[in-house]
């Protein structure tokens, strides 16, 4: 077994509902959904975010979509216009989630190496550069 970051196994999107941030985590490969379901427990997610959350973590399963939806309560410093946070609407809690580390077999680690990250040496093409 080895440890890899969730960013190689899943993509994610987050948003807000009041003082709660939601993070939807979607397996790149449906075959890895079960692995995510086993390891991304509400308890482990709560431990990952630690003092960033004033409330608890709820989890919902969407097996058809290969996705898990997390509600992170008390994540947004009051939420909406109350919040003093740069990320007051929880738009990038998704990427904070993708920092989590999971235990996977060497085989899976090799399969997903580099996934979710810009390929080495990549740069915007000349016509795309600012």
């Amino acid at each position: 077994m080895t440890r890899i970051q969730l960013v190689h196994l899943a993509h994610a999107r987050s948003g807000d509902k009041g003082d709660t941030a939601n993070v939807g985590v979607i397996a790149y490969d449906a075959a890895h959904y079960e692995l995510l379901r086993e390891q991304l427990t509400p308890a482990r997610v709560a431990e990952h975010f630690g003092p960033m959350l004033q409330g608890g973590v709820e989890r919902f399963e969407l097996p058809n979509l290969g996705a898990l939806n997390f509600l992170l309560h008390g994540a947004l410093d009051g939420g909406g216009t109350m919040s003093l946070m740069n990320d007051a609407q929880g738009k990038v809690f998704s990427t904070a989630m993708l920092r989590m580390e999971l235990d996977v077999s060497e085989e899976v680690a090799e399969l997903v190496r580099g996934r979710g990250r810009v390929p080495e040496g990549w740069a915007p093409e000349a016509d795309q550069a600012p």
Partner: protein
Amino acid sequence: MRMIRVASGQGFWGDDLEAPVRQVEGGPIDYLMLDYLAEVTMSILQKQRARDPGAGYARDFVPLMERIFPACIERGIRVVTNAGGVHPVGCAEALVRVGREAGVGGRARVGLVRGDDLMDRLDHLLDEGHSLSNMETGAPLSEVRERVQSANAYIGAVPIVEALRRGADVVVTGRSTDTALTYAPLLHELGWGPDDFDRIAAGVVAGHINECGAQCTGGNCMIDWWTIPDLATVGFPIVEMFEDGSFVVTKHPGSGGRVTRASVTEQIVYEMGDPRAYITPDVVADFTTIHLEDLGDDRVRVHGVKGARPTPFLKVSIAYAAGWKAVGTLTYTWPDAAAKARAGARILRQRLDRLDLRYGELRTELVGWDSTHGPLVGEPPADLPEVELRIGVRSDDRGSVERFTREIAPLVLTGPPSVTGFAGGRPRVQEIMAYWPALIERKAVEPHLTVEVLEV
């Protein structure tokens, strides 16, 4: 099988102004839906109306319609929007005026939906026993009644369908749900009944996918983002809905962006609560029943959606004044950028403490290091090239926030060295409009909904 195309043209107030034009010009569509409202938008509009009685709606909408009104009428494209905000009458009247200027006088009708605004009836509703308790905290609205700025019920498809049935080419509403702007035309066109819960739920899923514009067609999409083509002219989504409640999400041929199973899934999970119960005024949709099929060529098929009878309640969006805030920034540079920024923040705190000011919160973040991932990133390296110190305060005392905004600039000459980035002047004091979500019985709202049809 009959099919209706509903195109999304705006995902929020402030979205790409050219997108609705591209939707009208880029290929066949039957309806164009324009969503302008978010949780905080109603309170912003209410503040604007307090200063100017003619304001209170999404002003971008009127000049947009001036551009696309003739094409919409000629091609039979009908527009459904919640641009009316807290002043749908003003919005509809402005629309009639620009319609005439744009040359569609005598050829167009504007539907106006009213009755979602509860502000004038608020005390009466409280007296009648509607507590409008906060859905998150349970606190009764009476705790903040004096500070309430706006109160609107989220309304569904019924009045929009009525306006379309009466021949409206453009339907203007106040706080319609974002999803109803997409599924109301489907109810109208495809002959679905009010008890066709599975098909209406499919319409809700279509509406949820449509409501954030390009967020399902490659915008803000994580998967292989560096390979997504031509986001400069990103195609906004188009839902092709069939009578049986199955639909395809796509975009105009030749437009930028990408529609795949992954891009659609990202949007489906956006701002999601319990996926088994996505509650709307017309149905409770079960998002765990969604099946997706990637057809290739920027087409994703959605089917299998199940829904259930709606609840006896409507959600109410209430905004109330909750004090003041301000945020200031300064940039510190290498060497030891983060150490300098933190020292600067400490000096500022000491000064504010001595001035005996009152703050509910004083928050310090380092943009470029921990402002989004917080303690997950650990301690910053001493060789960080630069960092932006971002300090915010919140208080129920406006004077304390005002004074804070005058304490940022002095740090440049009286604090740690190598600091810059103060060209923008003093931070602005902002009044906080807090969000108070509540429920109300349908019977307190629905009899008050009205539909008028205005001739252009």
